[in-house]
C-alpha cells in the first residue's frame, strides 16, 4: 500500500505571488528581491508538516483570504527605497536586507522571510550610535487596510552600550495580510526594550519574524501583547553570540472568538554565561486557540547557560485550546535549563473566597484574570506600555 507523500512545503502556493518591483526601486534592492523571490518560488509556503509550523496551517488560512487566485505583489505606494535615499543605501543595511538570519540553515523555514525580502518597498531603519542612551521610547505605527499585503521591514541596530526602547504598534481595518520582518543587531553591552502591541483587525492575518543578534553583555527585553488578528504567528529567534548576553521574551495572549495565535520562540546560546527566559501567559476564550513553541538551544561552548521557559494558559471556555511544545537542545554539560507549561481553568477556591466577600462572579473572574497576567505586566519596564497593556486588558475583559 502506498501512502500519499506528505510535503513539508507547498510549491504550488508560489503561484499566488508575482515578483513585480517598481521601475525606480534601488537596483540593489531589486537584485536582492529577485533572488529572495526565486528562493521562495522554489519551495512555496510551509505546510504543517514542517515542525515549527505544526500547529499553524498557513496554506489553509490563505485560501480563505484569497479570491481565486489572488496575486500579491509589491504594491506601488510610497514610501519606498529609491536610488539615492541615504539611510537605506548604507552598506550594512543592504547587507542585512539581503542576508537571512544566522540560523536559517538549521530550520530552513525561511519562506516568509524571503517573501518579505521579495516584496520590500520600504526599509525602516533605527540606528543608534555607541553610548547613546535614548530616554523616551520610539513608537512605530504599522497600519493596515482592507485588501493590502504588507511586507514591512524594520531594522534596528544599537551600537555598543547604547540603550533604546521601541514600541511596534500594529493596527488596521479590514482583511489584510501582514508579513513583517524585524531584524535586530545589538552591540556589546547594548540594551533594547522591544514592545509589540499586536492589535490588528479581527479579519487580519498577522505574520512576523523577528531575528536578534546579541554581542557580549547585550540585553534584549521583548514583550508582545497579542490581542488582534484572526490568525497570528510570531516567530522570534535570538542568537546569543557573545558571553553574558541576556534575552527575555515575555508575552500576553488575549484570545477570543476563533482567533489563532502562534508564538514560536528560540533562544540560541552560542557563548558562555548567557541567560534567556521565555514567559507567556495566555487567556483563551470561546473557540480560540493559542500555540506556544519555545526552544532553548545550547551550543557545546555555551557553558554556564541559564535558560528558562514557562507557558501558562487559562482556558475560559470549553472550546478554547492551548498547544504547548517546550523544547531543549543542549550540547554543553554545565548548564541550568528549565521549562514548564500549565493549562487550566480558574481555580474555584479563590473564586469562592472573593464571592463570599461580595464580589460578583464576573468581578471575581476579572480580578483573577488580571492577577494571572499581572506577573508579566509587572515586569514591563516602560510605564506608558504598562498603562496601555492594563487598559487594553480591562477593555478586553469588559467586551
Amino acid at each position: 500500500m502506498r501512502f500519499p507523500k506528505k510535503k513539508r512545503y507547498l510549491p504550488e502556493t508560489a503561484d499566488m505571488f508575482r515578483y513585480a518591483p517598481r521601475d525606480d526601486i534601488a537596483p540593489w534592492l531589486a537584485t536582492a528581491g529577485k533572488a529572495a523571490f526565486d528562493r521562495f518560488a522554489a519551495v512555496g509556503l510551509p505546510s504543517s508538516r514542517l515542525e515549527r509550523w505544526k500547529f499553524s496551517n498557513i496554506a489553509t488560512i490563505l485560501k480563505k483570504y484569497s479570491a481565486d487566485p489572488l496575486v500579491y505583489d509589491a504594491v506601488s505606494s510610497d514610501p519606498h527605497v529609491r536610488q539615492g535615499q541615504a539611510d537605506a543605501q548604507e552598506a550594512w543595511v543592504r547587507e542585512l536586507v539581503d542576508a537571512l538570519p544566522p540560523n536559517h540553515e538549521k530550520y530552513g523555514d525561511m519562506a516568509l522571510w524571503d517573501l518579505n525580502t521579495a516584496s520590500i518597498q520600504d526599509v525602516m531603519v533605527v540606528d543608534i550610535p555607541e553610548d547613546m542612551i535614548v530616554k523616551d521610547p520610539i513608537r512605530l505605527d504599522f497600519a493596515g487596510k482592507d485588501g493590502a499585503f504588507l511586507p514591512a521591514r524594520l531594522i534596528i541596530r544599537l551600537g555598543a552600550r547604547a540603550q533604546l526602547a521601541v514600541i511596534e504598534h500594529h493596527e488596521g481595518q479590514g482583511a489584510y495580510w501582514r508579513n513583517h520582518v524585524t531584524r535586530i543587531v545589538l552591540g556589546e553591552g547594548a540594551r533594547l526594550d522591544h514592545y509589540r502591541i499586536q492589535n490588528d483587525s479581527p479579519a487580519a492575518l498577522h505574520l512576523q519574524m523577528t531575528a536578534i543578534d546579541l554581542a557580549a553583555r547585550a540585553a534584549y527585553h521583548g514583550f508582545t501583547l497579542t490581542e488582534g488578528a484572526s490568525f497570528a504567528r510570531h516567530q522570534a529567534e535570538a542568537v546569543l553570540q557573545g558571553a553574558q548576553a541576556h534575552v527575555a521574551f515575555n508575552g500576553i495572549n488575549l484570545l477570543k472568538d476563533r482567533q489563532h495565535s502562534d508564538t514560536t520562540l528560540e533562544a540560541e546560546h552560542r557563548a558562555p554565561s548567557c541567560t534567556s527566559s521565555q514567559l507567556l501567559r495566555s487567556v483563551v476564550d470561546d473557540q480560540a486557540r493559542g500555540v506556544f513553541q519555545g526552544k532553548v538551544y545550547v551550543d557545546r561552548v555555551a557553558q554556564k547557560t541559564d535558560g528558562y521557559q514557562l507557558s501558562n494558559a487559562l482556558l475560559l471556555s470549553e472550546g478554547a485550546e492551548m498547544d504547548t511544545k517546550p523544547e531543549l537542545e543542549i550540547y554543553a554539560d554545565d548548564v541550568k535549563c528549565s521549562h514548564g507549561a500549565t493549562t487550566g481553568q480558574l481555580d474555584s477556591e479563590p473564586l469562592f473566597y472573593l464571592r463570599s466577600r461580595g464580589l460578583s462572579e464576573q468581578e471575581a473572574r476579572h480580578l483573577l484574570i488580571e492577577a494571572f497576567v499581572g506577573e508579566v505586566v509587572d515586569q514591563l519596564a516602560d510605564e506608558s506600555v504598562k498603562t496601555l497593556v492594563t487598559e487594553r486588558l480591562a477593555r478586553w475583559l469588559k467586551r
Partner: protein
Amino acid sequence: MIRIENLHVEIDGKEILKGLDLTLEPGKVHAIMGPNGSGKSTLSYVLAGHESYTVTAGSVSYEGKNLLDMEPEERAALGVFLAFQYPVEIPGVQMSNFLRTAVNAVRRLRDEQELDALAFLKLAREKMKALGVQEDMLKRPVNVGASGGEKKRNEVLQMAMLEPRFAVLDETDSGLDIDALKIVAEGVNQLRNPERTFLVITHYQRLLDYIRPDIVHVLAQGRIVKTGGPELAQQLEAEGYAAFTGEQAA
C-alpha cells in the same frame, strides 16, 4: 434571626449534615463545639454558599429570606460573613484592590455610597490600627506568604470592613499561638454589638475563654445534640466528646 431546619448536606455523595436544627438569636454569640468530622466546616461553607456542598433537604432562613437560594455574593451583601479556617492565598491580587472592590461591591448592593480611594484608605488604616495589622499588608497579595496569625487577623480585618450582620468564624483559633489568639479574639469582641450575630465554630474551649459565648451548641455526627449556656463548654473541655459520639473516651 437565623433558623436552620432539618438541614441535610452532602459532598461527593457522602452525607455530612444529617438533619441539623439550629436557631440563632440576633445580637448573641453562639458557639458550636464538636469533634473532628462532625460537620462543623461543612456547616460554615453551606452558610456561605460553597458550590461543592449539596443541600439535599432542609432550609436556612435568614431574616425571613431563604438563604440557600442565594449566590455567595448576595449573602455577603445581606450581611453574611465567613471567616475561613484556611484563608485562600490569591497571588497577584493586591489586598487593597481586593478589599476596596469587596467593600464597594457590598456597599453598592446595600444601596450605600461607594468609597473613593482616599475614604477607603482612611477607613482601612483605622481598622488596621485597631487590629494591630501592619500597613504594608494592603500592598501585599491576598494572604500570600502570610503566617497563620496574619491570615486570621486579615479575616477579622475584612469582617470589620464589611460590617456583617451575621458572622461565622470557622475554627478561627486553629494554628494560632496564645498571643495571636488574644489579638484575634479582641478584634472580634470589638465587633460585638446588639445587631450582629456570631456563630463561633471551634474544637477547643480555649477560644471561648476570649470570646465569651452566650449560647453553646454541641455538634456531633451531623446534628446539634445539645444546647446550653457557657458552662457547657467547660463541661466538654473536662469530659471530652465521647458522650456525644458514642465512642469510648481515650
